[in-house]
């Protein structure tokens, strides 16, 4: 698959999983993965999924506005930069967010998230 298709397929899979069943994100992270969520640093798949499943909302929906991607070097990694809206159930206004993923290939030919940085965009 060309880099653009990989990036878009990953983004679709990630946010669909996030919105339907956050625990299902576990196999997208590994022990060495790092998440910085609104400035808080979390390491390792278990801790990352614990953080995401304990966010203070039950239901949410991401809608993606932009996806940018670049290969990150000879190890076959890819940087993906996403911006969009996050609608929480019961809230009138959607939140704007930006998120950066650094994806690395797995032995099976998929990708996992090595680096993940999430920030809400305030007006």
């Amino acid at each position: 698959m060309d880099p653009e298709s990989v990036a878009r397929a990953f983004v679709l899979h990630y946010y669909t999983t996030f919105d339907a069943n956050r625990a299902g994100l576990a196999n997208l992270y590994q022990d060495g993965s790092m998440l910085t969520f609104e400035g808080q640093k979390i390491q390792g798949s278990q801790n990352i999924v614990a953080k995401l499943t304990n966010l203070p909302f039950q239901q949410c929906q991401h809608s993606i506005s932009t996806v940018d991607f670049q290969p990150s070097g000879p190890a076959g990694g890819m940087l993906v930069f996403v911006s969009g809206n996050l609608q929480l159930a019961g809230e009138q206004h959607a939140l704007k967010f930006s998120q950066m993923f650094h994806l690395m290939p797995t032995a099976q030919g998929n990708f996992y998230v090595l680096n993940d940085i999430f920030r809400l965009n305030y007006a």
Partner: protein
Amino acid sequence: MVRLGTSAPLYSHGLIAYERRVVEKMEEQVEMVGKAFVDHYYHLFDNNRAALVSLYQPTSTLTFEGQQILGVDKISNKLNNLPFDQCRHVISTIDSQPSSSTGGILVFVSGCLQLQGEEHHLRFSQVYLLLHAHGFLCIYIKKPYHKLCI
């Protein structure tokens, strides 16, 4: 850089605490590098845009509002020909992480861009992958993004 290389299990609490302090120190260093880079980059951008060229290499890529630009010359050309002369970046957040697969540092910046003569600021986010060269304190930007969020 510090490496802890041991195949023996770390039984002692003392050793584990030591390792945790080393990791914390490394995290601090990554943050320091990220912040120093951001201060330097935007100071140059706002005061001497032509000098930004020193931070890029032939293998650098810039994706600017969706447009992909490769190499120092083209990136320099793009940045020097943006449709405004004076601007000021005001940085809100800087997040840095080590990127173990590249040996580099990922830096995620968000803030506002004030253009001279414009009443409203533009919000932006930008991602950099910084790579060291030859172990010296030179930082080359490998893969910056620049996405304006309105």
